[in-house]
Each structure stands twice: as C-alpha cells, then as structure tokens.
C-alpha cells in the first residue's frame, strides 16, 4: 500500500517542526502519499488515563478506517499509545461500549480494522529496503550512527508485533551506507517522561545514552521519536553539565537521516533547528551532483 492516513502528533506540529517537514519530503521522494488527519486529538501520550484516551484514539482509528487507509504515525509514543488502544479495541465488547458511549454521538463507528504503523515500519515493510537502497544519492559512508528507538517501538511485545521491528533502524542505516554504532541503552527510556517529575533521573538517562554514543565513536544518534529528540537534543547540554563532561552528540530524526542519504538539502530537513549543532555531520556529507527536490 502506498497511501496512508497520516497522524503527525502534537510534537511534530509544535516543538519539532523539522520532523514534520522532513517526513513529508521523504514520503514525497518515495512516492508514498500521505493524507493528513487534521481534526483528531492527541493520543494521550500514556499520560492521560486510557479511560479517556481510548475514546479519543478510537475516533482517530475510525476516521482512518472511513478513508480505508492504514494510520501512519511518526512518534514512538503516539505509535505505542494508539497501537495499544487499537489492540484493546479488538475486543468486540469493549469496542461496542466505546462506539455506543463515545463515537455514536458524532455518527462514527469503529469496526476494528485500522492498522497502525510507524514511519519506521512503513519504510521497511511497505516501501522496502532494496527499493530504498536504489534511491540513495549520497551514501552516508564513513559516518557512524547510534540507533535510539524510544520505548514504545520496542515494548510491549504484543503491541509492537513482529520481533524484527526491533532492528529496523540498524537495517536502514546500513542500506543508506552508514555504520551502526551500538549503545547498550538503544531500547531504553530517554528520560523525557521524568523531566517534569524527577529531573535528575531524566538528565542521568540522557547523559548515559548520549555519552555512550560518543564514547563508542558515533557521529550522531538517530531516533524515530520526537519526544526522545526533545530530550536527547534539547536537554543534552544540561545533562552533560550534570554528568560533568562534554558530549555534543548531534541527534537526528529518522527521516532526516534518510533524507540526507536521498540527497535532500540539510537546511530543508531542518538540521539547523537542533539544540546540539549538526554542523559536523553536514560538513561530512558528499555533495550531490544535482539538487534533489521533494514533490
């Protein structure tokens, strides 16, 4: 399938506009169509109780279902929370309850058929690694990337589904010509959920992951989750200070890494918008013969 109902989530429309811009450009280059859902609600991000977020997410799922499309997310948290709601809504009794109590008022009914897929999964499963490889204009040779998934693209197992999804970033990095630099915490929490509750814990997590990427020789970390990006990029300076060391590890959004390899302009991908400078990465890039523009 090459068309998706697109759920951008709050953060790509708020503090990480560069994520939104880069994913739209990359999908354009891949000739994959996205139809953005503009009138749906925040997934609840695992903060709101599922008693209220399930109806909100059922509404989103019902709208995608009406369009006959799978729902594409670009945030690990959106994916995890909407994916978990979709799984609960497989239970006919629960679905009937949500339909009757919540969706009927708007004339909606969710039948339980919408598939929820993160952009990372779409790239590998719907577009294909070989196809992606064929489009590489600027191989990321000589550059090391540490994958950082965001919890909800790894766990819980029943929501994530196929086990191999836990290694997709590595596969994509290799296809784009880059080198994978593993870190022990690639599937752990970045610290973001604790930022307003227990800041020292959050900063310690951030320092640990970014510091390990640096110690292992990575040029950048790459994440499919904007909340991880807000934390690892936005809080890195404070985290490094708390850990009494310098880190300065650039953090790329997944579509930025893909976009660079496909020859897109770093500025257009929003690489200038990060807290931690990406200048060193940009300087390492080979020039592309002809400028690539996304449709």
């Amino acid at each position, binding site marked *: 399938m090459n068309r998706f109902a697109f759920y951008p989530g709050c953060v790509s429309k708020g503090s990480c506009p560069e994520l939104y811009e880069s994913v739209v450009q990359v999908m354009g280059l891949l000739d994959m169509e996205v139809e953005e859902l503009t009138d*749906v609600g925040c997934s609840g991000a695992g903060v709101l109780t599922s008693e209220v977020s399930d109806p909100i997410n059922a509404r989103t799922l019902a709208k995608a279902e009406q369009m006959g499309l799978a729902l594409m997310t670009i945030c690990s948290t959106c994916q995890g929370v909407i994916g978990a709601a979709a799984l609960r809504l497989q239970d006919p009794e629960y679905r009937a309850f949500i339909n009757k109590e919540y969706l009927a008022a708007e004339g909606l009914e969710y039948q339980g058929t919408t598939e929820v897929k993160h952009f990372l999964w779409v790239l590998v499963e719907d577009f294909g690694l070989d196809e992606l490889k064929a489009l590489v204009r600027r191989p990321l040779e000589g550059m090391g990337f540490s994958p950082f998934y965001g919890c909800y693209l790894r*766990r819980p197992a029943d929501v994530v589904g196929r086990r191999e999804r836990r290694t997709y970033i590595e596969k994509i990095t290799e296809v784009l010509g880059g080198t994978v630099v593993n870190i022990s915490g690639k599937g*752990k929490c970045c610290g973001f959920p604790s930022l307003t509750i227990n800041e020292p814990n959050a900063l310690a997590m951030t320092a640990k992951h970014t510091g390990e990427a640096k110690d292992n020789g990575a040029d950048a970390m790459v994440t499919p989750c904007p909340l991880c990006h807000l934390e690892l990029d936005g809080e890195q300076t404070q985290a490094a200070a708390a850990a009494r060391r310098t880190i300065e590890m650039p953090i790329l959004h997944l579509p930025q890494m893909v976009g660079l390899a496909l020859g897109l302009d770093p500025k257009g991908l929003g690489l200038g918008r990060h807290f931690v400078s990406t200048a060193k990465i940009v300087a390492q890039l080979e020039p592309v013969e002809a400028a690539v523009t996304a449709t």
Partner: protein
Amino acid sequence: MELTFNVRRGDGRTKDATYQAYHVDVEPETSVFEALVKVREEQDGTLAFRGNCAVGFCGDCTMLVNGRQEVTCLTTVSKALKDDAIKIDPIPYAPTVKDVMYDAKRFIWDKVNSFSPGVVFNGAGWGGAQAVTDDDLRPVRRAMRCTMCGICDQGCTVIDVNLDFKGPAALTKVYRYVFDPRDGRAKERVVEAGETNGVWDCVHCWEASDHCPFDIDPTHRIMDLRDRSVRLGVKSGTGNRQAARHYNAFERSVENHGWLDERNVAIQSYGGLIKGGLKMMPTGLAALRRGKANLLPHPKRPGASAIKALFARYREVTRTER
C-alpha cells in the same frame, strides 16, 4: 552431560572479580540452581549464592546466567549452556555480599517494607457483611503470583540511574494491597506510593513487563496505581502533587485544544507561569532562536470541540461507574 561453570568469586562488588571454574556432570534437564548446589555440596563448601525453594516460588535464586537475568531454579543447564560453559555473575543493582550472593534486604525487602505490607482488614467478606467475589480478586491474584525475584527491577530504566527508586517489584506489592477489596488502607497506600521515588518516577518504558518471567505485567500494575491515584483525587505526597499538576495541565491542554501544547504543559508542570516560566526561559529562548518554537498562543485544531465532548462524556461515564 559434563559442563563447566565459571563463577564470579570474591567479596562485595568493589574488588576485582575473579572467575573460578567448576566441572560438573549433571543431566541436561538439571536446573542451574541444582547444579550449583551440587558444586557446593561436592566440591566447594565456600561458594556463596542465594536460593531457597528450588521450584520457582520464592524468587530468591536470581543470578546473571551468561549475562542474562534468570530465576536459576527454572533454567535448565542445557538451555543456559553457551560454548560448553555457563558464566555466573551476581545480579546488577544489588550489593553483592560474597561470590554471587546479593544483599536481598537492601535490594528488595527494605523497599517492600517501606510500604507496610500486609492487608489491613476493612471488614469486607467477614461475617457475611460483604462478599468478595472471584472477579474482585482476579487482578489481585495475578499480582499475588509475584515471586519477588526482582528481575523486573534489573530491567528497570530508572533504577539504572537511581538505586533509590522503589522499582516495579516493590510497587507491584503495593498494587496487590491497594486493589485487594479487603484492604482498608488503599488511599494511604496510594499517598505513600506517590512520594518521590514512587509510582510517578516510573517512566513507563515497559522494560519491567518485558523482563518479568511470570507474566505479572508489573509496568501495568504501576500504571493502575497511577490511575487509581488520579481517580481518588490524591494530591498529597511530593510526587503526587507534582504529577497532579502535570496531569491536570496535560488534560486541560488536550481537553481545550484537542492536542498538546508542550510548552505550556511544561511551564504549568514546573509550577505555574512565574516559577515554571523562569525555569523554561533558557530552553524557550534557545528554541525561539532556532525556529523550533514561536510565541503565538496555541491554536485549536479543527476537531477540538469533538474532543471536548469526549472528555465531557468520559466524566459522565466514570461518574456513574464510581
């Protein structure tokens, strides 16, 4: 079958670890624990490790087996074997007493005891006053199966950076009492569990559930405790107060705009416009400079009124349920 155990020897954690090799002849289906008991009985009475029931009930015999956390009485040697040997290390995050024996008191029991375990009877189901049904007890029974093996704590992202975090094992124990219909201390327990290093410090990364070998789903149990705390309107306790602020700001944002205004939620969570605004100022200014944020008030999304209606309905539905 003949195999070799390479077991970490030495006192405490600070000294350099040395490994001692023991060769044993056991059946393939022998558990790692039983094989180690055989070593201790027949070869080296000074080898120290924990273990008790040997049938997967007490959770005491957890060790790192070839780098993986295992309840060793439930792991067969044939399964554990890697290159004809089995490497045994003490579990992480617990003080090591000697060899692979960990300090269970400091690892888990001090944390459990900080929550006054034990049902404080409220009279339900006694003398015919109120029957406790099978359905009422089902979720509790699942948590009661927890062996306190602490494997969830060993996977915990928060304990990894803060050993004082109470952790999923101890918090699952709290759940077991809060959700027990016979217990009369639910509210006090939720207040205690909402202090710093309690339920609100959990980052819901689902590592605990992923690690638990007994399908207790401890991450979910923590989330249930948080939901209960929100439902009971508990605002006392350091963590509860801060979490309530964050929760309320989040809820207000989604309810009124249909989506999340991260900037405003952060300001409110840190303690309102003055305190929170000051705290967020450096990040905010840096974000503005980089074109990551703007100063315009958050616009409503097209579906905002429909989302607001869902919240109103949710309040009605849960009110009738309560």
